[in-house]
C-alpha cells in the first residue's frame, strides 16, 4: 500500500521530455540572471518575484483549462478586475472581510456563468463571446469605479497579499494550492478526463456519452474561480481595485500557457508545464527590470519569446513528421534490386 502511494507521488512529479527541456531553460536562465543581473538573488527580489508570480500564474491556470477544451477566455482579466472591484466596494462600505470575499466570489461566478451558459448552451465560438463579455465586464467595472480606483480596506486584509508563512508569501501558497487543485481536478476526476477528451474531439466525446455541456460550464466556472483568487491577491497587494489591474496578464498568461506546452488547438496541457512557463516569464521580467531595460522593450521581448516558442514547437513537429514519413516510405517501398 505504502509503495503505490509513493509511486503515485512520483508519477505526479515526473516530467515529460518537453517539460524537462523547459525546466532546463528555467534553470539556465535562473543561473544566468543570478550571475549577471544585479541583486537578482537578493531576498527582496526573490520575495517580490514570489509575490508577483501568483497573479499571472492563477490567470494562466484558468486560461489553461479553457485552452485544453480548444476554447479561449479573453474576458478573464476583466472578470478578475470586476471581482476585485466587488471586493473593494464591499470592503470600503464596511463589510466584514469574509462577506466581502464572498461578494467577490459571487461576482466572479456570475460572470463565469454568463460565459459558460452562452458558450455551452448555444455553441457560440468562445473567442467572440468572450470578446463581447470582456467589453461588457470592462464597462460594468468602469461604471462602478467611474474610471478611478477604490481603496480604504481594513488593515487585516493586506495580510493576504503581504503576509508570509515562514519565508513563503501567502500569495505563493494560494497559487501552489490552486496548482495542486487544478492538477488533481484535471488528472484524477472524471470531469478532468472529459476536459481533455472534449478538446481532442468534441463530436466523439458527445457520442461516447460525455455530458459536453455540463463539463464546459464547469470549465468556465473553474477559470472564473482562478480569476477570483487572482483578484483577491491583486486587491490586497495594491491595496485598491481598478479596472485595468491585471489587464496585461491576458497576453502573458496565454503566452505562459503555450510556452508550458498546452496545445492552443486543445486536447493537451499540463499544470507542471504551465507553472514552469509562468516561472520563466516571471524571472525574465524581473531580470529585465533589474537590468533596467525599458518596460516597452520587455513587451517586445515577451512577444518575441511567444513567437519563438511557437517556431521551435513547429520545427520539432516538422522533424517528427519527417521521421515518420521516412519510416513509412521505407516500409512501403520494396527494396530496389540492382
Amino acid at each position: 500500500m505504502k509503495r503505490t502511494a509513493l509511486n503515485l507521488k512520483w508519477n505526479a512529479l515526473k516530467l515529460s521530455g518537453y517539460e524537462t527541456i523547459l525546466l532546463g531553460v528555467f534553470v539556465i536562465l535562473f543561473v544566468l540572471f543570478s550571475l549577471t543581473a544585479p541583486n537578482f538573488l537578493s531576498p527582496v527580489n526573490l520575495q517580490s518575484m514570489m509575490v508577483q508570480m501568483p497573479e499571472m500564474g492563477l490567470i494562466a491556470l484558468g486560461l489553461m483549462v479553457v485552452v485544453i477544451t480548444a476554447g479561449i477566455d479573453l474576458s478573464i482579466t476583466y472578470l478578475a478586475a470586476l471581482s476585485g472591484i466587488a471586493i473593494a466596494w464591499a470592503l470600503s462600505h464596511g463589510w466584514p472581510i469574509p462577506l466581502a470575499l464572498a461578494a467577490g466570489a459571487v461576482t466572479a461566478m456570475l460572470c463565469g456563468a454568463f460565459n459558460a451558459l452562452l458558450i455551452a448552451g448555444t455553441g457560440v465560438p468562445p473567442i467572440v463571446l468572450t470578446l463581447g463579455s470582456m467589453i461588457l465586464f470592462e464597462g460594468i467595472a468602469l461604471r462602478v469605479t467611474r474610471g478611478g480606483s477604490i481603496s480604504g480596506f481594513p488593515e487585516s486584509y493586506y495580510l493576504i497579499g503581504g503576509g508570509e508563512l515562514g519565508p513563503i508569501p501567502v500569495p505563493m501558497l494560494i497559487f501552489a494550492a490552486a496548482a495542486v487543485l487544478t492538477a488533481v481536478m484535471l488528472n484524477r476526476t472524471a470531469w478532468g478526463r472529459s476536459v481533455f477528451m472534449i478538446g481532442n474531439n468534441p463530436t466523439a466525446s458527445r457520442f461516447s456519452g460525455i455530458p459536453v455541456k455540463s463539463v464546459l460550464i464547469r470549465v468556465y466556472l473553474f477559470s472564473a474561480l482562478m480569476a477570483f483568487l487572482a483578484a483577491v491577491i491583486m486587491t490586497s497587494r495594491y491595496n485598491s481595485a481598478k479596472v485595468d489591474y491585471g489587464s496585461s496578464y491576458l497576453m502573458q498568461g496565454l503566452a505562459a500557457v503555450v510556452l508550458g506546452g498546452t496545445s492552443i488547438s486543445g486536447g493537451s496541457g499540463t499544470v507542471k508545464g504551465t507553472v514552469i512557463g509562468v516561472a520563466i516569464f516571471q524571472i525574465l521580467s524581473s531580470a529585465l527590470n533589474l537590468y533596467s531595460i525599458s518596460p516597452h522593450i520587455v513587451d517586445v521581448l515577451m512577444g518575441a519569446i511567444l513567437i519563438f516558442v511557437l517556431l521551435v514547437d513547429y520545427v520539432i513537429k516538422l522533424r517528427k513528421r519527417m521521421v515518420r514519413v521516412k519510416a513509412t516510405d521505407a516500409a512501403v517501398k520494396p527494396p530496389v534490386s540492382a
Partner: protein
Amino acid sequence: MRFLKSKEGGIFLIVLLLFIVLSFLNPVFLTFDNLIDVVQTNVVLGILAIGMTLVIIIGGIDVSVGAMTAAVTVLIGKFMVGFGYSLPVVLLLAAAGGTLLGAINGFLVSRIKVQAIVVTLGTLSIYSGLTMYVTGGVWINNLPQSFIDFGRIRLPGGIPIQIVFLVLIALFTAYLLKYLRIGRSVYALGGNMRSAERAGISVARVQMFVYSYMGFLAGIAAFVHTSIYRQVDPNAFNGFELQVIAAVVLGGANILGGSGRVSGTLLGVALLALIGNGLTLAHVPSFWHKVIIGSFIAAAVVFDVLQRRRIEKQLVKIDVLQS
C-alpha cells in the same frame, strides 16, 4: 425583397430603425454636420473593419491591427517631422509600412501554421512595445502645415476628403472579393480549407495575401487617422482591435470563416457608430457605452449561431426527405 431577407438586410433594418429612432429623439442627430462628423470619426474603423472582414472570412483573426495602425502613425509622423510632407511619398510610406507589418503576421500564420490569435497576440505585443519605446508615449504635434491643409480638404458638398478613402477601399475590396481570383480563393479557403487546397488553391499564399492586405489597410488607416487628428498619439489605438472585430461580427461575418461581405461590415460599422453617437447625444455617461456594446456583441453572436443552427436543421430535413 430578397435583400431584406438576406443577413445584410436584417442588419440594414436594425440600422434604419436606430436611425429613425435617433432622429426623433434628438434634433441634433439629423443635422448635416453631425452626420458628417459621425462618418468622419468612423472612417478609420471602417477601413480596418474591411480588412478584418477578409481575415475573418478565411477563419483567421488579427488582434494586432490597432498596434499596426499606431506603429504606422508614428512612422509617418516621425517621417513628416524630419523630412517634410509630400502626398505620394507619405502615402506610399504608410502603405508600405503597414503591408510589411501585415506580411510578418502573414508569414507566421501561413508558414508556421499556428493559430492566428496566438501569432497576432505576439506581434501585438512587439509592435506596440516598439511604438511605445520609440516615442516614449509622447505625442508628435508639429506636423507640416501642408499635411494639415490636406486633411482639411472638403469635396464639393462639404464632404471631408477622408471619406473618399473609405469609399474607394470599400468599392475595391468588394470588387476584389466578388470578381477577382484571389477574392474567390478567400471564400473557398474559409468555406473549407482542405477542399480549397485540393482544388489547387495555395492556402499559404491566400493567407499571406489576406494578412498583408490587412496590414496595407492599417497603413492607409494610419494615414487617414493622422490627417483627421493632425497629431500622433501613440496610445490612440490601444484596444481598438476589439471594436474592429466587433464591427465585422455585427456585420454578419461568421467568426468561424466562410462568410462575410464588405456591405455587411459597413453596416456593422454604422451600427456601432450610431449606437455610440446616439448614446453621446443622449448624454449617457461613457461608462455605459461599453456595457451596451458588449451586450450587443454577445447578443448578436448568440442570435447568429442559433439562426445558423435552425437553417442547418432544415437542411438535414431536406436530406432525409430526398433519400
